[in-house]
């Protein structure tokens, strides 16, 4: 793994939100290249919002973020709310092969080499026997494996996962975690929003604890302290209809 000193993502006093109400505000800091970062915080802390901000689905209310030369297409993003039509008549193979979009685009075919790549991805996720099945026939865990196989083929420099282990059994979680650490070893930057703190402690070297602002950011052991966690619960209050205008200026979060 070559150490590129430039950060993969930098936040500059970034505020993201909806309709002038910030979901998460005044974030400043860097995510290093090749970092394996857990995004932790209560519901409503702004984890999903931050990931959506990184992929450009929502625009900053103020501040900015830079991807340091990385193009959006080099980011693979697994959203929490997937609006996938599971009754759609498409096979597992075809659904996974769409991960090759950057290579095949609109017109190029899936040739033999690419077929092998898709089959490899299916095998990595244990889906090889299901290739010809329709996605509607899969269980929740199998479908999550399909999404991960597609991510694998996307071959992205930055991988963003928004609660990737919801409603998935432990065996599948273990397999998916193994894949995530493989991505980490390959030098990819992985950011995952998670709830299971034991999982984070065991597998994620660094953690960003959010509660509508940065509570703590650093090595997991120093971030996930009882004191920080209590603080994050306190800070996450709901959206205030009559909130004042935020006058906080440049505030560097630790």
């Amino acid at each position, binding site marked *: 793994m070559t150490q590129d000193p430039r950060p993969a993502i930098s936040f500059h006093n970034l505020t993201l939100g909806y309709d002038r109400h910030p979901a998460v505000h005044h974030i400043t800091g860097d995510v290093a290249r090749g970092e394996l970062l857990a995004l932790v915080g209560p519901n409503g802390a702004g984890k999903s919002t931050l990931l959506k901000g990184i*992929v450009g*689905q929502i625009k900053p209310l103020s501040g900015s973020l830079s991807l340091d030369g990385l193009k*959006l*297409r080099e*980011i*693979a*993003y697994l*959203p929490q709310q*997937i*609006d*996938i*039509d599971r009754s*759609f*008549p*498409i*096979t597992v193979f075809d*659904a996974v092969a*769409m991960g090759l*979009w*950057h290579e*095949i*685009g*609109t*017109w190029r075919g899936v040739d033999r080499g690419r077929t092998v790549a898709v089959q490899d991805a299916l095998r990595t996720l244990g889906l090889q026997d299901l290739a010809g099945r*329709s996605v509607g026939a899969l269980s929740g865990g199998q479908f999550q494996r399909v999404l991960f196989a*597609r991510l694998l083929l*996307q071959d992205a420099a930055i991988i963003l996962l928004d609660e990737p282990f919801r409603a998935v059994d432990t065996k599948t979680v273990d397999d998916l975690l193994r894949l995530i650490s493989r991505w980490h070893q390959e030098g990819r930057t992985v950011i995952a929003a998670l709830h299971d703190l034991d999982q984070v402690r065991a597998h994620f070297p660094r953690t960003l604890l959010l509660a509508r602002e940065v509570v703590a950011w650093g090595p997991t052991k120093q971030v996930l302290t009882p004191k920080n966690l209590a603080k994050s619960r306190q800070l996450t209050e709901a959206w205030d209809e009559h909130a004042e205008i935020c006058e906080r200026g440049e505030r560097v979060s630790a």
Partner: protein
Amino acid sequence: MIHALIDPFVEFAFMRRALVGCFALSLGAPPVGVFLMLRRLSLMGDAMGHAILPGAAIGFLVAGLSVPAMSLGGFIAGIAVVLLAGFVTRSTVLREDASLAAFYLVSLALGVLIVSVKGSSIDLLHVLFGAVLALDDSALILIAAIATLTLATLAVIYRPLVLECFDPSFLRSVSPMSSPTHFLFLVLVVLNLVGGFQALGTLMVVGIMLLPAITARFWAQDISNMIVVAVASAFAASFIGLLLSYYANLPTGPAIILTIGAFYLVSMLIGMQGGLLWRLLPRKHLEA
């Protein structure tokens, strides 16, 4: 027997023209219908059918029963509704179905108003219900051209269109093709409705787009087979419907659409892919 099937077409030119027109319509519209159905936009086809009415009516006012004028008017009205509804959806709180409903209802009222102020009620009936037995050359050429353009465009945007149906947010994350694909597809919907309304009218043309597609859902498991089944059933229904209307002296448009409707009912009952009967049959479950 063979004679009974072929003679009406051999004997009468208007039957031949109607058959050719319906076959051309059956090539383009059902594949579009398959994607409308898979995107859960089935009812949008209906809305768009209403939306093209004022454009066609204005064309009728300007140039009388002229195919190019009415088609161009219908096309402009359809695209205008699509664009306006899309704009409102993106910029306000309204969802796509609500903004589309608002515009097509206004459009429909406007169309009826224009036709009844200037034309007779017979003209209105003609626009609303079509005249498949009175297709002239320009109408046939228009329908054939639209079918060709439709199939070519679908071939070009096939992959992004499939992905736009299956997982739109993924398509947006990997490609800027999402919005252009969506728009091109809506253009195809409008085009096929415009092409068909000479024959079947602005209301029933939606039938030859959607009913074959919905029928095909019960027989095919993947999209390409679905398209084949949809086109084939539209062909069969056109042929049977025309003969029905000839021998039983029934209005032609409804005869064709009702024939596809019958296909749908039968498919819904016995279709191999999730038909009613297969679910009711007490069959033992498999090992795995």
